């Protein structure tokens, strides 16, 4: 009906957000914040056996300015928390955070004065990965869930201007039984600006 009919098979009309999110989700470049032993599993995740490049995330960037998603892999101490936050602040919007492993998510077995009991005390975490350490396939699963989130235009850490209402495909939703974080109060979805033309 309408434009598609006039343009023929060579064109696809869609909302610009859906198209951009689709591009973003298939090249999520990770910032490997490998602090301790979970980093070994994160390397396996990028290696040939588990092969994160199947999902477009093989390009580990050691510069935060070139990365989209920070994988915090390891025990985060109070002393290290400042560094993690500084690197996160250097990443350009839109950005996401995966908390990999028990220590990062909740302090894990380090119930002690020096370890932050969950990095969500100072970072907006999008996904928590269970395990000590998680298997690389579990991290791959987190990446797939994150891709769905990116496609829906959700992020906990970004300014409201990024958050869109577009859903693609429209019926896609989080699989049941998976914990995802709700958007923060100040990050409630805003109506999309009307694109002229």
């Amino acid at each position, binding site marked *: 009906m309408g434009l598609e009919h006039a343009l023929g098979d060579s064109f696809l009309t869609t909302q610009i957000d859906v198209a951009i999110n689709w591009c973003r989700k298939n090249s999520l470049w990770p910032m490997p914040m490998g602090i301790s032993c979970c980093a070994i599993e994160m390397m396996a995740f990028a290696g040939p056996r588990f092969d994160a490049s199947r999902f477009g995330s093989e390009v580990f960037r050691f510069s935060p300015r070139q990365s989209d998603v920070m994988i915090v892999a390891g025990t985060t101490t*109070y*002393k290290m928390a400042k560094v993690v936050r*500084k690197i996160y602040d250097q990443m350009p919007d839109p950005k996401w955070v995966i908390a990999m492993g028990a220590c990062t998510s909740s302090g894990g077995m380090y*119930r002690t*004065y*020096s370890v932050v009991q969950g990095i969500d005390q*100072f970072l907006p975490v999008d996904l928590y990965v269970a395990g000590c350490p998680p298997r690389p396939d579990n991290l791959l699963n987190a990446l797939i869930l994150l891709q769905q989130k990116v496609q829906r235009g959700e992020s906990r850490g970004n300014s409201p201007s990024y958050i869109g209402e577009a859903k693609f495909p429209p019926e896609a939703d989080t699989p049941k039984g998976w914990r995802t974080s709700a958007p923060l109060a100040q990050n409630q979805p805003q109506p999309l600006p009307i694109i002229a033309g």
Partner: protein
Amino acid sequence: MRLWRRTSLNRCRLLQVSVNQKVIEQLKSRFGESNIEANEFRDELTVVVPKEIIVDVCRFLKDDSTLKFDLLADLCGIDMYTPAKRFGVIYNLYSLTSHHRIRLKTFVEEENPKLPTVSTVWATANWHERETYDMFGIIFEGHPDLRRMYLPDEFEHHPLRKDFPLMGIPGSLPLPKK
């Protein structure tokens, strides 16, 4: 094989015991009977000395041509949590030439946890003493660079003291804002 091993172990044991006796004799003759409190358990020698002579004892043990304890294998602190002699410092010494070990101990009071540094004797004591200062708050006088080893410089407590709570003191280690 077994016979050989047993013989060799026995020889080691005899050697260690004789060296222990030699160390005790030499220390007592040099620093006085009252200053040296020696204790042997399973052929391991522990010597407790007053903190005033700890540097002299260490230098003697290192430089004496028959003893030559030239490696400070470890230096650590201990909190006895008693009113008198609350904190202790333990020196584990090893001789690379004769392969013998001894353990030195010295204690300080809670009100005045200070003792002289041995980083002038073994350079490796520098970082060990920094760690002991970080964890117990024992001050090593004459240390070239007595800063904290692990915890942030602005932290005010000493976490391996027995009166420090396991989960820390809320607010003592600030987190970045969310």
